[in-house]
């Protein structure tokens, strides 16, 4: 029976090519726009941490004085980071910030490249599930006893070491030798959830050096440095002892018990710092600390652009206009066919059968519109990414769209078709049987 309905639907679509084209176009344009914006939204709102999202926490402290910032900053001061690190109370913990240096190897024929670098602790790789190709992170002891060691990415390893196992070899950062201890596999989470502060869709760094080297090497800060009061910053040491926030601090905690325990510790830490004359804002110590898991962290950093939310909203409204448009056209078309329905009803078609027949027709239109709409969306994303230089991660069609698109298309059409099909299947057959 279904095939019969499909056959009838196809005949009906072909019989009124203009009207059918109009409907397919309307639905496809609505779908095209919705899928385009939805795809970007979905890419933006993706949480790369997956199920580990609730285990990874950004430690945030209200270190500012009164009448300054009115929200938690995403970064910590160096002194707080050093204190938290030495307490060493979480399952895993890592400080992190971004710097950059010129990279060279013993092979003089390869031109030096300026590389974005992450300065962090050995636990970073475990916390963010970074996969290793060769070797591993530096020993935990390096986090307290600084050593010139480095973890590099697969791509750099190909450029500088022809893809061989380079563990034990040497690279030069600003002409200083660092020993390679690990090579990580291609790793580029989108959004760049471990640090979205300088572009949530930038590529991941390919060089990682120990945080413990910071006071020795005085790594330039390539991320944000936020201050809430005037502090002269003439030397690197000024930076290290300042109240300026520029380091992200991560802890891994399993379950409510660990989280509560760590919160208690942080509240105690704040109290202790208050006694030392810091954390001067009149707020309860407990309210001056918080642990932010990855989902909340991505929201805090506005990874999903507001414009995109507006666009998704407007495109859903747009789709609803298309829906109403199709509803009108379908009603028009179906009512025109009421006499035929009368005959079919007289001959023994039940209301349900008529309804099914028309819903199949509507569904077919939806499907056609959906396929066309998906093509529009792919085209639009291509054009947008070429024209506006959007990160590839945002304009690649998400696999789920292959499922979502026909679903939205068919359900839009079906919603639009419900009323017309209901109207037409409710028509009294006798009215249309008399010849006019």
């Amino acid at each position, binding site marked *: 029976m279904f095939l019969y309905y499909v056959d009838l639907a196809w005949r009906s679509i072909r019989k009124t090519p203009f009207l059918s084209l109009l409907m397919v176009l309307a639905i496809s344009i609505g779908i095209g726009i919705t899928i385009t914006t939805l795809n970007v939204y979905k890419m933006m709102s993706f949480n790369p941490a997956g199920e580990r999202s609730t285990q990874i926490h950004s430690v945030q402290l209200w270190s500012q004085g009164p009448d300054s910032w009115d929200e938690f900053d995403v970064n910590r001061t160096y002194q707080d980071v050093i204190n938290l690190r030495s307490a060493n109370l979480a399952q895993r913990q890592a400080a992190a910030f971004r710097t950059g240096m010129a990279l060279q190897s013993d092979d003089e024929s390869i031109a030096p490249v300026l590389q974005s670098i992450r300065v962090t602790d050995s636990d970073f790789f475990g916390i963010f599930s970074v996969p290793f190709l060769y070797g591993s992170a530096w020993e935990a002891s390096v986090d307290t006893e600084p050593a010139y060691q480095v973890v590099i990415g697969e791509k750099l390893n190909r450029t500088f070491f022809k893809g061989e196992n380079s563990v034990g070899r040497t690279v030069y950062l600003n002409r200083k030798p660092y020993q390679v201890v690990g090579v990580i596999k291609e790793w580029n989470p989108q959004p760049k959830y471990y640090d979205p502060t300088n572009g949530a869709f930038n590529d991941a760094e390919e060089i990682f050096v120990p945080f413990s080297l910071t006071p020795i090497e005085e790594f330039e800060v390539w991320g944000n440095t936020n201050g809430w009061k005037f502090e002269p910053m003439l030397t690197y040491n000024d930076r290290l002892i300042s109240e300026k926030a520029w380091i992200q601090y991560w802890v891994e905690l399993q379950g409510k018990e660990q989280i509560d325990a760590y919160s208690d510790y942080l509240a105690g830490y704040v109290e202790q710092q208050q006694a030392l004359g810091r954390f001067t804002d009149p707020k309860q110590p407990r309210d001056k600390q918080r642990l932010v898991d990855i989902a909340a962290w991505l929201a805090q950093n506005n990874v999903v652009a507001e414009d995109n939310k507006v666009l998704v909203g407007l495109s859903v409204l747009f789709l609803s206009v298309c829906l109403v448009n199709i509803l009108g056209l379908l009603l028009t078309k179906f009512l025109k066919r009421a006499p035929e329905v009368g005959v079919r009803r007289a*001959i023994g078609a039940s209301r349900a059968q008529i309804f099914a027949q028309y819903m199949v027709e509507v569904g077919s239109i939806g499907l056609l519109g959906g396929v066309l709409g998906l093509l529009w969306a792919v085209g639009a994303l291509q054009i947008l990414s070429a024209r506006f230089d959007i990160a590839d991660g945002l304009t690649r069609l998400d696999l789920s769209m292959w499922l979502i698109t026909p679903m939205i298309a068919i359900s839009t059409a079906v919603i639009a078709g419900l009323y017309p099909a209901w109207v037409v299947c409710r028509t009294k*057959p006798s009215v249309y*049987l008399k010849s006019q």
Partner: protein
Amino acid sequence: MLSMRNISKVFKTDLVETHALRDFNLEVNEGEFVAVTGPSGSGKTTFLNIAGMLEGFTHGEYLLDGVDVSNLSDNKSAAVRNEKIGFIFQGFNLIPDLNLAENVEVPLRYRGIKAAERRRRVEQALEQVGLGARMKHLPTQLSGGQQQRVAIARALAGEPRFLLADEPTGNLDSLMARQVMELLEKINQAGTTIVMVTHDPELARRAQRNIQIVDGQVCDFAASGLGQQQGLRQDQELTPLADLAADFAAKAKASA
């Protein structure tokens, strides 16, 4: 075969209540060919719609083939229509996008009959009406008489026990009308019960029994011996001539 007892049908609008049928009684026996006549507005169409189960009624009882079909659900009445009743309309009512074979096939589709069996029956039905060679033609390529024969084939394909014809020759010239009438008679002789609504007294005379509907009631003056003249009032006995005149007047008004 068909038994209507004390059927009433009232149409209500905000302003008026119209009694389309009142205490309507009719028995049609298996294998009969009954012609129903009556002036415009007498309730012929209402009777036809009720007999064909296209409409419900207000009071009374309707037995089709011994089964009470008075208050069936939409699904069930559609199934009864599909299996037991064949329709022939004045306007043929073929579906213009479907070719002849596909048109004839429609009732079989809704009955869920397998493709091979469908084809056999369609061929047979079209053969029966003499259009076996034109299966792939579209209705618009046929003359009115041919279209009506297709409609008859469609009604026959479902092998109904009971055929309802509404002015089957109304849109045809006299030659074609005669052909269609002969076809109907042949079908009747093969055992199908036929009830035909018509204006044409000449056509009506060819039926075995004539029933006249006046003011929503049966006024049966054909010799049937079934004793159903009850409820017939003296003042309702119109002469056939007056009937025709009234009918003509009504028709003239309708097309104005």
